[in-house]
């Protein structure tokens, strides 16, 4: 029986041996790249795995690339697909290593410290990175570096044979990044020391400009200079608090003047207005609002109303009437309670302003009696009467208080019948 089996085996194998051309014809049995990381040869658990065969626990021969045994399904050396790339111990162009190897990196850092960059270069790099570190962007960049290290390694794994010559060049690139990365990692301790030194200097010998304003002044401009003004949404919170700062305001002004789009101008202008309002800088707010309404956009009734209120406080009655009427033109932007309340306010502003103008015209006429002044006083009275009547009508129609509009109306008309309460 045994003889029969041996004979059958010999007969079965003979034709294959006869037609064999080379190892590549038996790739399934003897894979060329058996290692799980794609290399042709590697060390797994202290044993060399290379193109050829391996033996399982029972001593049976298996293909080196097989992950599990054919007979017992036990794991073979090539089982784990996540095995790290085995280190190449042969001679390379330069002595390089990966960032993950912390112990090796410490040794190499010492070497570079002696042989590589001199101190001045390192200081320059440190200064360059210190700003980044201050903004806490270093962490993000560090993650990017890790990604750039990983990527080429994976590419190399997929195409090992073609990379035989290239690895030295390809590997160099990420390692340079790694060098910078390591220096960045090294930074914080030294940066802390330098910041402490700077603050000590500032305390001992403060600049003459900062003496009066205090330490807060020293820090604020530095923070402002770093910030741009492109992201308007991000600036809104600072604007609401009136903390845009001089540099960002200038930046926004230049952006506004350089922009040709009214929508962009409007957005920038609103941020500046919010900042001026929060700072309670009324002249600046008035300038900005006037520019916005006259040159950019006057379709927002809230802005017209706000400007009219501001002007009424300053007693500029003609402008109050003008901007109240612009707001009334766009009152449809409001709705519900907001509508009735604000339209009432606009009528009130307009009637009060007209009444004030009439009062002044009457005084002028009394001081200087002539036909022109009398005609002017009469004209202003008629307008005050009209506006007051419109206010009264709206108050009645919307169910709001008619006391004050009725007073204005009767005062201007001199006739209670014209102004039925």
């Amino acid at each position, binding site marked *: 029986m045994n003889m029969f089996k041996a004979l059958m085996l010999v007969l079965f194998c003979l034709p294959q041996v006869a037609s064999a051309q080379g190892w590549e014809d038996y790739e399934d049995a003897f894979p060329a790249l058996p290692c799980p990381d794609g290399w042709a040869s590697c060390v797994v658990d202290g044993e060399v795995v290379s193109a050829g065969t391996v033996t399982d626990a029972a001593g049976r021969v298996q293909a080196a690339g097989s992950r599990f045994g054919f007979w017992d399904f036990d794991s073979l050396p090539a089982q784990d697909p996540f095995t790290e790339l085995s280190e190449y111990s042969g001679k390379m162009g330069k002595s390089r290593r990966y960032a993950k190897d912390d112990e090796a990196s410490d040794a190499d850092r010492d070497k570079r410290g002696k042989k590589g960059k001199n101190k001045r270069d390192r200081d320059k790099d440190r200064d360059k990175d210190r700003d980044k570190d201050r903004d806490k962007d270093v962490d993000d960049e560090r993650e990017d570096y890790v990604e750039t290290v990983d990527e080429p390694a994976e590419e190399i794994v997929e195409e090992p044979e073609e990379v035989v010559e290239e690895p030295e060049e390809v590997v160099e690139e990420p390692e340079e990044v790694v060098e910078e990365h390591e220096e960045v990692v090294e930074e914080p301790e030294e940066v802390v020391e330098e910041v402490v030194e700077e603050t000590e200097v500032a305390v001992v010998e403060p600049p003459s400009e900062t003496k009066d304003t205090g330490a807060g002044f020293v820090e604020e401009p530095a923070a402002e200079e770093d910030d741009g003004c492109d992201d308007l949404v991000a600036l809104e919170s600072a604007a609401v608090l009136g903390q845009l700062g001089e540099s960002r305001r200038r930046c926004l002004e230049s952006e506004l003047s350089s922009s040709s789009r009214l929508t962009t101008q409007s957005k920038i202008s609103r941020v500046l207005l919010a900042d001026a309002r929060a700072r309670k800088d009324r002249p600046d707010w008035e300038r900005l609002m006037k520019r916005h309404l006259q040159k950019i956009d006057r379709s927002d009734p809230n*802005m017209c109303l706000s400007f009219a209120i501001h002007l009424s406080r300053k007693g500029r009655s003609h402008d109050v009437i003008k901007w109240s009427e612009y707001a009334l033109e766009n009152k449809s932007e409001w709705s519900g309670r907001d509508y009735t309340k604000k339209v009432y306010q606009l009528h*009130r502003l307009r009637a009060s302003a007209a009444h*004030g103008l009439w*009062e002044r015209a009457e005084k002028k006429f*009394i001081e200087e009696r002539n036909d022109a002044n009398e005609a002017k006083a009469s004209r202003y009275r008629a307008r005050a009467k009209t506006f007051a009547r419109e206010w009264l009508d709206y108050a009645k129609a919307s169910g709001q208080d008619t006391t004050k509009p009725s007073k204005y109306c009767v005062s201007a008309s001199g*006739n*209670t019948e014209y102004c039925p309460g």
Partner: protein
Amino acid sequence: MRIYLAVICAVFSMACAHKSTGEGVPVRVYVLDQVTKDPIPSAVVRHPDEAERHRVNAVSGYWEASVLYLPKAKELIFTPGMPISLEVSAPGYITREIIYDIKRRRNHIPVYLDRIEMDSDVIEDPIIQFDRDKPASDGTVGPAN
């Protein structure tokens, strides 16, 4: 007898002459500030049926008349015992209506006006929104879809 007749005719003719001129009892209205008690130079007085408004004297602050000319050629002559209604107003003051019974003499009526409180109520400043881009619709509506 002749003397009596002459006196009666004279009195009658005087009465007729007086009536034909339309003159009545003079009524004088002083318009004063309620607080300062000063005359309001820009005040006006008007009868409710009258179209015209009468300015007060800018210095003394009063207006005086004994007859008013109403629409449709009517005259209103002030006579003792007659009630008269007037509207007194001035720019910046609350208008007052008065009804006065005319006396034989010294019809001096002081009218005190209160100022209109211009800014007693503070108007609430509206909130100005930031101008942000509105997100585009999700594309589920419209003729193209």
